[in-house]
C-alpha cells in the first residue's frame, strides 16, 4: 500500500523537520527585530544634520522657526505627553468602570450587545473622529471654557481665551478614541476570571464590589495594565484627529485651554513642504524621539506586567 507523502515525512527522522521549523520561525522573529532596528537606523541617519546642528538640546529647546532654521522639539514632546496623559486620565476610570459594569453587573445579553457597539467604535477611522471633534466637541468645549476659566481659573491649568480648539479638546477626543480598547480588552479579561473564584468570594459573603476589588482585579491586573498601555501607545501616535483639534501652535503652556501641538501632528503638517535639508532632518529627528518614547513606554508596560504577574503568582 502506498503511503501519502505526509505520512512518509512523519516516518522519517524527526529532528530534521524540527530544525527547519526552528530556523523558519527564528527567521520570522529576526525580520521583526530587523525592521525595528532598520527603522531606528534610517531615522538616525536621516536626522543627523539636526543632531549635528543642535545636539541633544534639540529635545528641550522650544523654538521652531523654519525661516531662521532654528528647531527645537520640546513643544511637540510636551503636547504629545500632555494630551496623552489627559486622555488616559479620562479614559482609564471611564473605561474600567464601563468594563466592570459590562463584565460583572449587566445581564449577559446587554453586555454582549454593548461590547459589540464599543468594538464598532474602535473601527471608526480617526479622521472621522477628528471631524466629529471639530463639529461637536469643539463648540461644546468653546461653550464650557469661559465657565472653566471663571470657576477653576485660580489654577494655572484653566487660563486663556476660549478658542475651542486646544490641548483640552485634543485630550478629550483622544480619550474617546482609546476608550474602546480599554473597555473591550478589560471586559474580555474580566470574563476569564474563573467562576469558582467569584463563587468562593460570594460564598464568604462578599458584596459585588468586594468581588471586583478583591478577586477580579488582582486576577486581571496584568491584562488590564496591558490594555492601558496599548491605549497609551495609540494615543501617543494618533495623528489625524489630534491635528484637527489641537490648534497646531508650537508653544509650551501649562493651561489646557491654550492651543498646542504634538509630534505626530507636526510631521503630518510640515513634512510635505519642508524645503531645506536641515528642516527635513529636524522633522525626522522628531520622528526618532517619538520612536524612542514609544519604546520607553512599552518597556515600562512590560516591566509593570512582569511585576504584577510575579506578585500574583
Amino acid at each position, binding site marked *: 500500500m502506498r503511503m501519502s507523502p505526509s505520512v512518509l515525512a512523519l516516518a522519517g527522522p524527526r529532528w530534521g523537520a524540527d530544525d527547519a521549523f526552528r530556523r523558519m520561525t527564528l527567521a520570522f522573529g529576526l525580520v521583526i527585530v530587523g525592521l525595528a532596528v532598520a527603522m531606528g537606523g534610517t531615522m538616525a541617519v536621516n536626522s543627523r544634520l539636526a543632531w549635528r546642528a543642535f545636539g541633544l538640546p534639540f529635545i528641550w529647546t522650544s523654538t521652531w522657526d523654519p525661516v531662521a532654521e532654528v528647531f527645537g522639539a520640546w513643544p511637540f514632546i510636551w503636547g504629545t505627553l500632555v494630551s496623552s496623559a489627559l486622555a488616559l486620565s479620562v479614559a482609564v476610570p471611564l473605561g474600567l468602570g464601563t468594563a466592570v459594569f459590562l463584565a460583572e453587573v449587566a445581564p449577559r445579553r446587554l453586555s454582549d450587545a454593548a461590547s459589540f457597539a464599543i468594538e464598532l467604535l474602535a473601527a471608526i477611522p480617526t479622521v472621522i473622529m477628528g471631524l466629529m471633534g471639530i463639529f461637536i466637541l469643539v463648540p461644546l468645549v468653546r461653550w464650557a471654557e469661559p465657565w472653566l476659566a471663571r470657576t477653576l481659573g485660580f489654577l494655572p491649568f484653566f487660563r486663556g481665551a476660549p*478658542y*475651542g480648539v486646544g490641548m483640552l479638546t485634543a485630550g478629550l477626543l483622544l480619550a474617546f478614541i482609546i476608550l474602546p480598547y480599554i473597555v473591550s480588552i478589560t471586559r474580555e479579561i474580566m470574563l476569564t476570571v474563573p467562576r469558582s473564584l467569584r463563587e468562593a468570594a460570594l460564598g464568604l459573603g462578599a458584596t459585588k464590589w468586594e468581588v471586583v476589588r478583591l478577586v477580579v482585579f488582582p486576577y486581571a491586573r496584568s491584562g488590564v495594565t496591558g490594555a492601558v498601555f496599548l491605549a497609551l501607545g495609540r494615543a501617543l501616535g494618533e495623528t489625524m484627529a489630534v*491635528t484637527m483639534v489641537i490648534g*497646531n501652535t508650537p508653544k509650551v503652556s501649562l493651561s489646557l485651554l491654550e492651543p498646542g501641538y504634538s509630534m505626530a501632528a507636526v510631521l503630518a*503638517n510640515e513634512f*510635505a513642504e*519642508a524645503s531645506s535639508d536641515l528642516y527635513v532632518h529636524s522633522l525626522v529627528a522628531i520622528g526618532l524621539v517619538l520612536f524612542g518614547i514609544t519604546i520607553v513606554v512599552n518597556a515600562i508596560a512590560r516591566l509593570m506586567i512582569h511585576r504584577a504577574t510575579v506578585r500574583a503568582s
Partner: protein
Amino acid sequence: MTTRKTLRSFPALALAMAVAAGGTAMAATTLVGTGASFPYPIYSKWFDEYQKVRPDVRINYQSIGSGGGIRQITARTVDFGASDGPMTSAQLFAVDGKILHLPTVLGAVVVVFNLPGVDTLNLDGPTLADIFLGKIRGWNDAAIAALNPGVALPANPITVVHRSDGSGTTFCLVDYLSKVSPAWLRTAGKGTAVNWPVGLGGKGNEGVAGLVKQTPYAIGYVELIYADQNHLSYAAIRNLAGKFVKANTAAVTAAAAGTASSMPGDFRVSITNAAGDDAYPISTYTWLLVYQANPGNKGEILKGFLRWMLKDGQGMAGGLGYAPLPDSVNGMVAKAVETIR
C-alpha cells in the same frame, strides 16, 4: 476552496490586465509631475482636457506640495515640478541642468474674517502685519477703526488663524507682509512655513476656512476660491496706489500687468504689493518647473502641452478662481517654451 478558485481564475485576469496595459502602453506616453497643491484644481482640469485633445499623452500630477515638487524635480524623479514660490538661487545652483520657471496662472490670497454683524472690512498692509504679529489684539483697535469709518467694530479680542502646514498660500501672504512691514520681516520673515507669533493653526485651506467660519472674531487667510466656497467675508486691502481693492480675478491680472514691464527673463518674480490702481496686492504667479533639456521625446511632448496651456488652457482658469496670464506675459512664456528640447 475560495483561495483555489481565485488562483484558478487568476491567469485569465492577469492576461486581461496585460492586454489592457499593452493596448495603452503602445499608444500613450505618460508624463509625471508633482508639486504645489494651490493650482491643483486647474492643473487636473487641464490634464483632463488635454487628454481629449491628445489621447496619446497622459499627464499624471500629484499635489504633494511645492517643497516636494522642488525636491523631486531636482532629483529628476519626475518630468516636471510645480511650485507657488520660485526656487531660490541656492536651490537652482544645486541642480544638474537648467530648470525653467514657467508661470501658468495667477492666484490671490484673501484675508477672511468672522465678525458677527460686519461683512465689509478695509485693511492695509502694516495693520494686517500687526494683527498677525499679535500687536493689535482687539477688533476695536484704533488702527483698524481708522481704516473703517462708520463700521461698528466689537471690542472682542482677535483670534488669528494661520496654516499649520507649509504652503504656497502662506508664502504669498508673508511675502506681502515682509514688503509692507519691517517689523514682520524682522520677527517672522518669509517662507512656506514661519514661526507665527500668535494664533491657531489649521491644516490646509479647508482647515483655516473651517476654523475661521467656526470661531467668532477670527481672522485668517485662504485662497480666493475657498473664501467663496465657504461663504466667508474677506477684506479689501489697500494697494500701493492707496486704493482699497477686493480680490477677484481681474484685480489679480491687474497686479500681474502692473509688474509685467519689469518681468525678469527667468520669470522668478514676486507680484505682491504691485503697482496699479486696480491691482490686488496679495497675488502670486504659480510656476511649472521643467528642465530645458529632456530625455527622448519628453521635451516635445511637454512643449506640446505648454503651447496648448498658453492658448486654450488659459480660458479655463477664471471658472476655478484663478486669473489668466496677462497677454504680455503670455507672449514671453510662449517664447521660453520654444527653448525646451
